């Protein structure tokens, strides 16, 4: 073989360069004898990695670098490379004289060198790298473990704007969507959510976004998808979905809301009832003291009234007797036929007659007052409805007189068992309202009858101004009045309602601005009040 001088120089230079490279390399490099596996050459990095000086390395069978348990494998590795002539890469451990170990990645290859076959090994210290890898693997497993325990479904996919692939699904998500049933809803959580929802993908993909969707599946299950997008530094897009089965939760929420509403309306009812009771109570107290007042007044009036009535009667008798005498034939003619005397007689007769009617009227009013405010509130009594109506009418007469025509259509009624003063109060409140509803002239009709079910019906109709439906709805509410404060208290009908309900009765109203108003009261003859 002819090698020119320049060629030789070039070779030397190249060899020198090669040697320097080997000496400076960051990997340990060994040349190994094919025949006996002894180390022929090693670079300074090899001294470092093995913890042995070059003199110690040269001549050392290469498997002696490994710990006892790996020596077998190390020999095999060597023999394999020798036998097959092929390179191999694997991780193994070096043990140093001080017993410390490192993991090395061994790259073995057969090379021809100056007509000799030798094995060259490049060994890289991967201890730190492997430790890192192991740690990261443990971390991964740990996270997977934790994520699988999560009570929400978690799914991660990548390349969502190209061909999405699933990176991870936790156990919960698999339970939710990969169950055995054939419901198509229960598969492909990622496709379903991505394709069917009206999310503008480009917009979402433009930023790292998060959004939530509720989806109801065919089987009635309700899922909440929380979807977030991430763009990784390598430009791939990831989508993380957190999926919750909120069927039960929603049902509970609904139940809660419903029971809340129910509660609220119950509270409202109770409050209204309470307010009604309170106003009825206030009214009852007012009536009780009014009753006592009326009773006292009636007593006080009756004494002078008794005297007046008696005297008027007496006066009438003797006045008549006196004139009978004066006008009789026994009397002298000038007196008997005196026209002044006759005139006097006629006028005084008229006046005493008026006195009598006036007194009778007072007596009737006082009687009505007494009947109206009977003090027997503690005990139920049998009560003649018509008498109650009449005594009440006497009391409201001044409001009706000359203005309102009263039509009575009384049927045959049995006595009913009730608190008479309360029922009178009912009649009074309704009659006063009716007379107030009639602006000028009008009619109030009172109709009573007895029905097959042993109930007494009392119907009051007026042709007054009537009410709009909006008003009708509220008339029994305590405090509701259209009469302006200071005029109406708005308690009248709420008390009526209370009393009628307490007597196991009912009250109904029909009213319209054209037709006027009718209140229909139905009372059982016997109640348990």
């Amino acid at each position, binding site marked *: 073989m002819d090698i020119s001088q320049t060629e030789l120089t070039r070779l030397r230079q190249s060899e020198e360069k090669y040697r320097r490279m080997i000496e400076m390399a960051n990997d340990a490099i060994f040349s190994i004898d094919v025949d006996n596996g002894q180390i022929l050459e090693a670079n300074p990095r090899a001294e470092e990695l093995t913890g042995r000086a070059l003199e110690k390395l040269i001549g050392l069978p290469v498997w002696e670098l490994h710990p006892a348990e790996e020596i077998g494998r190390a020999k095999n590795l060597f023999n394999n490379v020798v036998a097959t002539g092929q390179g191999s890469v694997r991780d193994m451990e070096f043990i140093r004289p001080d017993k410390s170990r490192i993991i090395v990645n061994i790259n073995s290859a057969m090379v021809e060198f100056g007509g000799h076959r030798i094995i060259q090994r490049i060994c890289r210290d991967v201890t730190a790298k492997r430790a890192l890898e192991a740690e990261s693997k443990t971390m991964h497993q740990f996270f997977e473990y934790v994520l699988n325990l999560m009570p929400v479904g978690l799914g991660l996919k990548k390349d969502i704007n190209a061909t999405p692939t699933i990176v991870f699904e936790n156990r919960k998500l698999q339970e939710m969507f990969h169950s055995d049933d054939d419901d198509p809803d229960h598969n492909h959580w990622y496709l379903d959510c991505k394709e069917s929802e009206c999310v503008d993908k480009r917009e979402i993909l433009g930023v790292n976004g998060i959004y939530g969707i509720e989806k109801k599946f065919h089987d009635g299950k309700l899922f909440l998808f929380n979807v977030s997008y991430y763009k990784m530094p390598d430009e791939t897009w990831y989508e993380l979905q957190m999926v919750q089965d909120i069927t039960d939760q929603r049902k509970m929420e609904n139940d809660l809301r419903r029971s809340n509403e129910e509660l609220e309306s119950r509270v409202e009812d109770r409050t209204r009832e309470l307010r009604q009771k309170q106003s009825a109570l206030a009214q009852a107290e007012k009536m009780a003291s009014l009753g006592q007042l009326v009773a006292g007044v*009636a007593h006080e009036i009756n004494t002078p009234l008794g005297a007046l009535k008696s005297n008027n009667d*007496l006066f009438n008798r003797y006045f008549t007797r006196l004139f009978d005498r004066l006008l009789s034939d026994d009397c002298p003619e000038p007196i008997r036929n005196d026209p002044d005397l006759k005139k006097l007689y006629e006028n005084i007769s008229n006046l005493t007659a008026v006195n009598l009617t006036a007194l009778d009227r007072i007596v009737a009013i006082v009687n009505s007052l007494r009947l109206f405010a009977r*003090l027997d509130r503690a005990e139920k009594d049998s009560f003649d409805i018509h008498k109650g109506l009449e005594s009440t009418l006497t009391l409201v007469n001044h409001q009706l007189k000359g203005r309102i025509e009263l039509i009575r259509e009384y049927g045959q009624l049995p006595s009913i068992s009730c608190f008479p003063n309360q029922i009178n109060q009912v009649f009074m409140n309704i009659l006063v309202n009716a007379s107030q509803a009639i602006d000028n002239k009008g009619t109030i009709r009172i109709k009573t009858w007895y029905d097959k079910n042993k109930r007494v019906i009392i119907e009051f109709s007026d042709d007054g101004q009537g009410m709009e439906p909006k008003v009708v709805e509220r008339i029994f509410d305590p405090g509701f009045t259209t009469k302006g404060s200071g005029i109406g208290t708005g308690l009248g009908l709420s008390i009526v309602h209370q009393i009628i309900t307490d007597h196991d009765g009912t009250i109904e109203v029909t009213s319209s601005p054209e037709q006027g108003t009718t209140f229909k009261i139905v009372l059982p003859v016997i109640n348990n009040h």
Partner: protein
Amino acid sequence: MEPGKNIIVIVDDEEMVLTSLSSFLNLETDYEVKSFTSANQALTYIADNEIDMVVSDYLMPEMDGMSFLAKVREIQPDVPRVILTGYADKENAIKAINDVGLFQYIEKPWDNEDILIIFRNGLEKKQLMRKLNEKIEQINKAYGELQGLQNDIIKTFV
């Protein structure tokens, strides 16, 4: 006091009631009316004089009508007792009337005709009672005489 005249005692704290009632009775009847505004004065009178009928107001400041009439009953049990009431609570009044054992009650304002009837009946009752008592006395006397006779007969034979 004229013999044979019925004596009526009326008690009311209101003068006007007394005047009205006594004028009426004076004019319409031949009863002799004694009126008092004080129940105690009336009781004094009744203790000393036999009367035929008594009328009292229900509510009076000094003594209420019921107590007054109860006392009258103690003094002269046969006298019909009438209460005059303007009290609104008629039921209670009637209950009281039954308790004290009254002949009648009259409501204020009263009706003169009713009063006449009540008085007439009351006096008639009193009359009948007196007659009944007289008869009973006669019978008792006759019975006593009979017993005396019996005793005489027994004495004679024994």
